[in-house]
């Protein structure tokens, strides 16, 4: 009789379905997974240790590079932790801007997830559509911060600057004739808010397109229904948050349960799943995009009517206005002290969490009163989700691992930190 042995195979770190640098050691019995052991850390940059050697504000751009598909949400949690330690009020307009950009980020993240997930398990078309829409969202980022991805737009005490009055336009080029150029610039004639408003009107139609491609698609359902089922009890015990928890049927959303910024003034629904499988998590995320679109629309309407300051006037935390700095000795000193020495945060500790697109993103900051953090701990949602990969993929086929990695919405910037 032939000897039967389990296979151990190495999946990644250079595998297109590994979403970055995931190295997975799979123990197989035929084609069935016996054990999955993720090896992470290939992108470990010790962000938490680096933050200890930088002033509080210098670490803001590091936060973008954690979960590099939901940049502003990471900054948000970090700024909230500092604001909590300082006991700082954020102006109302800045709160609306943050809420709006959090939701833009959520749409951006879910588009990336939807495109990559469907590409992993066999659908090319959705990927192309999703990335077309993501381009508009990147333009919003760029208009407000100057950077397409790594914005560094949120600052302790507010946001870096107010929304621009003019939306940048495409310029003539030998590959574009005049009619194309006019068409490309048709929704960029007004301000950034006009552009966002136009997007919120177009976007529900796009989501319908994605759903036409996937929701009733036989192949899609065969690959996702009943795959990676997590019961509500296990989801809580494993520390799941965000769509992974809601997909299992637990209505838990920090935006509703522990509202921050102006989420308590927003009208939106929280979708939850029933079966806790990959398909339900897909439905939850698609519905979240529609709800985010609603929130963005509400913020746009409010922001149009309510001008005001977007960053605190406490110059120990936020720099004074440029003109004031040039004409006033005291403001000059503030400016100098702030940029040479940085913010001094009173001793203490705070944990601030936001509902990032992937789940709860938390920043635990310990300060000893210096201009640099004593310790920063970043709690990232996909780190916890990936640690449950072993349990979720046991007993499944090897091809389902790809579906499960996809449904966890993992990004290595935030797992390895």
């Amino acid at each position, binding site marked *: 009789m032939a000897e039967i042995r389990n296979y151990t195979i190495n999946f990644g770190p250079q595998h297109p379905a590994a979403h970055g640098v995931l190295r997975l050691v799979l123990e197989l019995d035929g084609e069935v997974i016996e054990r999955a052991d993720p090896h992470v850390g290939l992108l470990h940059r010790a962000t938490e240790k680096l933050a200890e050697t930088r002033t509080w504000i210098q670490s803001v751009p590091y936060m973008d590079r954690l979960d590099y598909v939901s940049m502003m949400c990471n900054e948000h949690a970090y700024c909230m932790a500092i604001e909590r330690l300082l*006991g700082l009020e954020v102006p109302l307009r800045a709160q609306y801007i943050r809420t709006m950009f959090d939701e833009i980020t959520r749409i951006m993240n879910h588009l990336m997830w939807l495109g990559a997930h469907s590409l992993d398990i066999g659908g090319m078309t959705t990927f192309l559509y999703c990335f077309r829409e993501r381009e508009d969202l990147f333009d919003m980022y760029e208009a407000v911060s100057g950077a397409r991805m790594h914005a560094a737009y949120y600052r302790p005490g507010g946001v870096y600057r107010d929304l621009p009055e003019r939306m940048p336009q495409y310029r003539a080029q030998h590959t574009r004739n005049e009619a194309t150029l006019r068409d490309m610039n048709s929704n960029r004639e007004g301000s950034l808010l006009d552009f966002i408003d136009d997007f919120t009107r177009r976007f529900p139609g796009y989501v319908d397109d994605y759903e036409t491609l996937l929701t009733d698609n036989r192949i899609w359902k065969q690959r996702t229904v009943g795959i990676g089922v997590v019961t509500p009890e296990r989801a809580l015990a494993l*520390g799941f948050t965000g769509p992974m928890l809601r997909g299992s049927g637990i209505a838990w959303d920090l935006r509703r349960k522990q509202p921050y910024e102006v989420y308590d003034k927003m009208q939106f629904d929280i979708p939850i799943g029933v079966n806790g499988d990959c398909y339900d998590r897909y439905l939850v995320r698609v519905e979240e995009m529609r709800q985010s679109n609603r929130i963005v629309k509400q913020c746009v309407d409010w922001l149009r009517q309510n001008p005001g300051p977007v960053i605190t006037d406490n110059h120990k935390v936020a720099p004074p206005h440029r003109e004031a700095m040039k004409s006033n000795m005291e403001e000059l000193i503030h400016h100098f002290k702030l940029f040479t020495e940085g913010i001094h945060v009173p001793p203490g500790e705070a944990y601030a969490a936001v509902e990032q697109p992937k789940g709860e993103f938390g920043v635990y900051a310990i300060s000893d009163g210096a201009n640099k953090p004593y*310790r920063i701990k970043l709690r990232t949602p996909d780190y916890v989700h990936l640690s449950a990969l072993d349990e979720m993929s046991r007993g499944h086929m090897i091809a389902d691992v790809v579906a499960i990695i996809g449904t966890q919405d993992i990004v290595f910037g935030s797992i390895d930190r």
Partner: protein
Amino acid sequence: MQGSLATLAAALPAVLGDALVATTTALGEVTVVVRAGSLLPAMTALRDDDATRFDQLIDVCGVDYSAYNGPQRDGPRYASVYHLLSTVHNWRLRVRTFAPDDDFPVVDSVIGIWPAANWFERESFDLYGILYTGHPDLRRLLTDYGFVGHPFRKDFPISGTVEMRFDPEQGRVIYQPVTIEPREITPRIVRENAYAADPGFEKG
């Protein structure tokens, strides 16, 4: 809405019993310090008692207090900090437990109470060298295979100890002692208390 912190703080002494060392409420958060020896019964009580019901473990992290408040600090060096969340009562709690021995920090593993602790404890072991007894698979997680040392300890240099390069003579990748020196552009400064928050400073 969120559960009241006062209710939570009032319920804690009964739930934790003599495991409780100190309770503080600051900045809208409750922190308890728990004796390392009775961590497991205390955590189990926090999860199962109807008055607390912390059904989710959000985060575990190691902290090295050796440089806190300058060199004059006494007391244990390493702490393990847990962030708990109750989806039933909608409140959070921070639990801190100090490892009694600085040279050989050991804390009980809570993996039997919340399976979510698995990777958090591996990470804390990797970065701080805190040993979690009862953890079934306490391997390094984030650092390189064969890494020496615990990089997040305060006495570990920011630039590390070894660097890697391709050696053309040997025709392979080699490790060698680091050749760069970390530079500090902005020095670390501790100012008087409430420097930023004091409105008296505002107008000068």
